[in-house]
């Protein structure tokens, strides 16, 4: 019993970190994704091309790899630049943080990765709204901004809730990748028990934490979906 409580306590601590990664990723990736989606729909081809390439790279490579690149990459690059004899305050400064805060690296890579995924969902949602909705707004004298916020946005939100809830539940599980660079989230905590005490069950026990949390999210999304069922578009 004692052991169970100890394990639960440790895992809860780890899950706190999991939740932090989750919350920070959402808080930044949701708005950033919208900006990226505007970029990928830009009428200015070079910008559109640039943004689409970026999204392709991020979506086309494993998050784990991105995590490692963001954690080690800047420092290594700066060191390499120094070794070539360049000495610029920015480079020296970057070289000095070889070991970027682990948590910062996790946050940055998760935010970028998820913003790109979200941007594609947003783009799909925005492009699925019929031209007639924009034109109806236009002939009523609305500005582009008014049309987007007053007419289009809520319809987009309604349409993207199912794919977004998928993606957000994937994020819950992806947080476990943070342990690649030794950020002590819940799986890392459970694995520590294997090394330290030869206990395997805490690792299985982590599933309960994930299931409870994704269960709550599922209920939340069902609730939002129901809330928005008053209209059809």
């Amino acid at each position: 019993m004692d052991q169970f409580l100890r394990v639960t306590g440790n895992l809860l601590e780890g899950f706190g970190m999991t939740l932090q990664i989750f919350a920070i990723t959402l808080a930044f990736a949701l708005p950033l994704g919208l900006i990226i989606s505007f970029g990928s729909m830009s009428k200015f081809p070079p910008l559109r091309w640039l943004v689409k390439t970026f999204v392709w790279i991020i979506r086309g490579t494993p998050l784990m790899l991105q995590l490692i690149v963001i954690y080690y990459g800047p420092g290594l690059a700066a060191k390499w630049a120094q070794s070539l004899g360049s000495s610029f305050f920015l480079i020296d400064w970057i070289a000095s943080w070889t070991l970027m805060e682990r948590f910062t690296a996790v946050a940055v890579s998760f935010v970028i990765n998820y913003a790109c995924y979200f941007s594609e969902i947003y783009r799909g949602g925005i492009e699925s709204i019929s031209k007639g909705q924009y034109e109806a707004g236009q002939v009523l004298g609305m500005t582009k901004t008014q049309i987007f916020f007053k007419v289009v946005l809520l319809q987009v939100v309604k349409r993207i809730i199912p794919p977004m809830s998928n993606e957000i539940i994937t994020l819950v599980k992806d947080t476990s990748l943070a342990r690649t660079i030794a950020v002590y989230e819940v799986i890392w905590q459970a694995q520590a028990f294997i090394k330290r005490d030869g206990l395997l069950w805490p690792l299985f026990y982590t599933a309960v934490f994930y299931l409870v949390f994704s269960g709550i999210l599922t209920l939340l999304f069902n609730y939002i979906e129901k809330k928005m069922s008053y209209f059809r578009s």
Partner: protein
Amino acid sequence: MAVLEVNNLKKSFDRTEVLKDISFSLEKGEVLSIIGSSGSGKTTLLRCLNFLERAEKGTIAVNGKEIFNGENLKKTPESVIRENRLHFGLVFQSFNLFPQYTVLQNITLAPTLLKRGTPEEIEEKAKSLIARVGLTEKTDFYPCQLSGGQQQRVAIARALALTPDVLCFDEPTSALDPELTGEVLKVIRDLKNGDCTMIVVTHEMEFAKSVSDKIMFMADGVIEEMGTPEEVFGNPKSEKTRAFLNSSLEQF
């Protein structure tokens, strides 16, 4: 003085000329029906009037004031175009109501954003328009709870809320089941008695004949013939008009 004066309007997509030199005028309170076969440019003409498309040549004047000139197309800022398009209203074939808003909110949205009065004034006006199209008991319904005919009547009220000088309809009954066209046509007929200047693109020949002051027959981007319903339907001058009227008679 003419409410609307269109001169030498030209519009092409890529290299196909869709409108070739369109000129006509409309007096206050007149109803103009535009007929013509598919692809003749009827929709494009309405869209040019509402600035959903930009004609590359020609002028549009409302109440004697030039609001569009193909010559200085590039120089016209978006805000001026927005201002000018308010002279026109457009009712779409597919209604295009805003699904997340109730009937009342659909009608009050634009006047509210354009600050056309206090919220109370706007709501009062919207309610009187809803009554005018006979939907008072549906005021707080959402579009998905309405029949097509009812949705189209809301769309008409929504366009009227901004008191356009000329209200345009693009085949307002084409998307409706036959039994629902009557209620929409009746609303349009009532508007005529209310002195509303209107342009109606329609395939409903009987309606066009009975409600219009003028009929325009379009073919291949030109006005093939224009005149009173008696002239165009009773005694068409052009061979193309005659062929078109005969073929549309056969359909019934």
